């Protein structure tokens, strides 16, 4: 319970950018309910940049906080920059995560990258 720091608890209790984007330019889904975590990221791209990022997450406190942090970090970045965001960066931005939570939190950046790849597949010229 008291394994999460204040920053993680803040992103868990007040997650940023929760929701879906209707007519999203890219959608990325990772995880499944069996392992306990599932995330879907939605992106809107404008001029090669992430104009909007939203997510929906089924999972523990860490999973929700990670999703929130990823969405914040990604917004406004170019696709290349967003692809550089690693799961480690996210954990670092959150001020660290408990050891046994790292695995379920690794999904955050993966889901974002999947959404970007999904966008790129539809827009091969970029």
């Amino acid at each position, binding site marked *: *319970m008291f394994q*999460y720091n204040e920053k993680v*608890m803040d992103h*868990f*209790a007040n*997650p940023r950018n*929760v929701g879906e984007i209707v007519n999203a330019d890219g959608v990325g*889904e990772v995880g499944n*309910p*069996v*392992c*306990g*975590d*599932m*995330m*879907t990221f939605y992106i809107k791209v404008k001029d090669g940049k992430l104009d909007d990022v939203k997510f*929906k*997450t*089924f*999972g*523990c*406190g*860490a*999973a*929700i906080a990670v999703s929130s942090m990823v969405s914040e970090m990604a917004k406004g970045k170019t696709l290349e920059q967003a692809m550089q965001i690693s799961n480690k960066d996210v954990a670092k931005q959150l001020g660290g995560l408990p050891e*046994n*939570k790292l*695995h*379920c939190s690794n999904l955050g950046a993966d889901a974002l990258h999947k959404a970007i790849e999904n966008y790129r597949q539809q827009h091969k010229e970029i």
Partner: protein
Amino acid sequence: MENKNFIYLDNASSTKADDRVIEEMLPFIKEHYGNPSSVHQAGADVREGIENARVKVSELIGANPEEIYFTSCGSESNNFALIGIAEANQSKGRHIITSAIEHLSILNPLKDLQKKGYEASILTVDKDGFVNPQDIKKAIRPDTILISIMHANNEIGTIQKIKEISEIAKSAGVIFHSDGVATAGIIELDVNELGMDALSFSSQQMYGPKGSAALYVRKGVRIKPFILGGVQEKGRRAGTENAPGIAGFGKACEIAKLEMKSINERLVILRDKLIKGIMDNIKEVTLNGSMESRLPGNVHVSFEYIEGESIVLFLNMQGITVATGSSCASQALKVSHVCTSIGLSQATAQGSILFSIGKYNTEADIEKVIEVLPPIIDKLRKMSPLYKG
């Protein structure tokens, strides 16, 4: 933690020690600190305290004091019973029968015994968590030496048909052990009436201290020593006795025996109020376990589309303490085996919450839960990719 808004609803995990229990323990920390095995007066005073407690502990379950072995926790009692009885009786056979929803302190040593050549029949349970006594009858073989079925499940609260099971064991001449950690000191339990040959039970679940538990072993049942060393606990569990813990355990048993009935009359009302409050105010939620044969303080529910640790965290922010069977919240990162054994899907099991009500809870506590829970569930569902409502 001790603020007036703190609502503790995790009594199945551990309970707040009764003040009268703490009073009973203090002299065995402050004044009577001798070694109970010593012959001098300082030792004799401690010995007397331990033996007085042994009488009270035995009286709670209708046993004789010499049939009580003090241990350090419920898990130790379960290990002691399973391994000790299996090894002491292996000349008769090496087959053990148990259920899929036993505590891990039964299932894990059983795996170890299987590696050593023992065989096990691990029986499935129905959707309410009942072991079918007829399944036990069918599983018995000429080489069956032990049947171990818990009295009630600590998670879903289902109280087993123990008498039927023990009669089957008795007529087959098989030793019957029961894990009574969730029931002893909570509901009526008489080892003779229920036909138990061995019973594990623990102090911390009945408003006593942690680090103190017992194994009842019926006179005549063979069991191998669990800790080797001196002659404490008749040589079957060596090591200096936890005198303060044992004194507290004795007091907890004495209080439980006297007050159990009136406590339970109140707990059942609170339990049913909470169940109704959840069911009336939240959609797509399942009550797990049996409604007819259920522990008085147990409310175990599964909320669809969301994960348990998140629910626990949000409730904790409101000062409400509950437990979950979700994989994320467990150190082993596995979803509760009890939840999957009663047929819940992995996804549904992830959203399981146990509210375990205890004697210090009030009606206001339950009302507060009913008030704050629906918006939490709603918030998490709106965040969930699985929720389409």
